[in-house]
């Protein structure tokens, strides 16, 4: 089973670093702007509708964070998305506020899909501009789940991807149910 997850968010919030931490368990302090499209796969165990284990390939799309690129390529990137990881940088408040425009762009292509806000760089405590209360208020008002992460330390990164995969699973199972033993 495949679950397509798309990363969204402003440049330099840590989208590529989160994927690198999730897939390779690695981190690099140097900032290298993403060019083009990166598609990565990682197989995880999720819980199916009956409470059993199901293996799912999380197909993670990493895209350039430039808004003009997003607007040009949103059909290419977000068509068929099963879940969206909306990433912001806790040290730059505007990156949280910009998630509304990202969400709008994605919804125009993919419809309403599970959205998980990932508030990254929680390790940079002294530079933090968004409090837990502000984050909670912003996300609750939009019905979005959220989690604070650090790609640098790995805090909550694996969980964030798994949770989003899990949220996307029911709809994916509805249209892509695995074969039963009887018809294999």
């Amino acid at each position, binding site marked *: 089973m495949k679950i397509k997850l798309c990363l969204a968010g402003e440049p330099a919030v840590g989208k590529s670093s989160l994927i690198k931490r999730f897939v390779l368990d690695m981190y690099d302090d140097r900032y290298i702007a993403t060019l083009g*499209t990166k598609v990565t796969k990682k197989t995880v165990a999720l819980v199916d509708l009956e409470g059993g284990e199901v293996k799912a390939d999380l197909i993670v799309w990493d895209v350039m964070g430039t808004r003009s690129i997003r607007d040009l390529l949103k059909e290419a990137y977000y068509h068929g998305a099963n879940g969206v990881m909306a990433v912001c940088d806790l040290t730059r408040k505007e990156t949280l506020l910009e998630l509304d425009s990202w969400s709008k762009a994605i919804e125009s292509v993919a419809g309403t899909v599970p959205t998980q806000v990932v508030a990254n760089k929680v390790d940079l405590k002294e530079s933090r501009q968004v409090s837990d209360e502000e984050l909670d208020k912003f996300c609750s008002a939009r019905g979005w789940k959220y989690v604070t992460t650090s790609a640098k330390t790995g805090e909550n990164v694996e969980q964030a991807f798994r949770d989003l995969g899990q949220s996307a699973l029911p709809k994916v199972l509805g249209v892509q149910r695995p074969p039963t033993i009887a018809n294999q």
Partner: protein
Amino acid sequence: MNESIVFRPDTERVLDERFRANGRDPDVMFTYAALRTIQGKFDEALDWLRQLEEIEPRYPGMWRLKAKIYELKGDAETAAFYWKMGCDDSR
């Protein structure tokens, strides 16, 4: 369209550097194509995509970008053709 408004100012420089380092970098070709599309230079964008197609025909989003360019050029039939070709990489 004013490209300095719609694109990060350092994008062209980063692209040029990466292209000099590797003239066959698919990410660079794709991004050049996107940049030229935004600048309205559709034929140049299609040239980049033709080069990309030669080295990586399954590059994610390539066919859909091609479809978008033809749509912007007003060629709906060709756009629909390439849109269908992009169905496989939507997942």
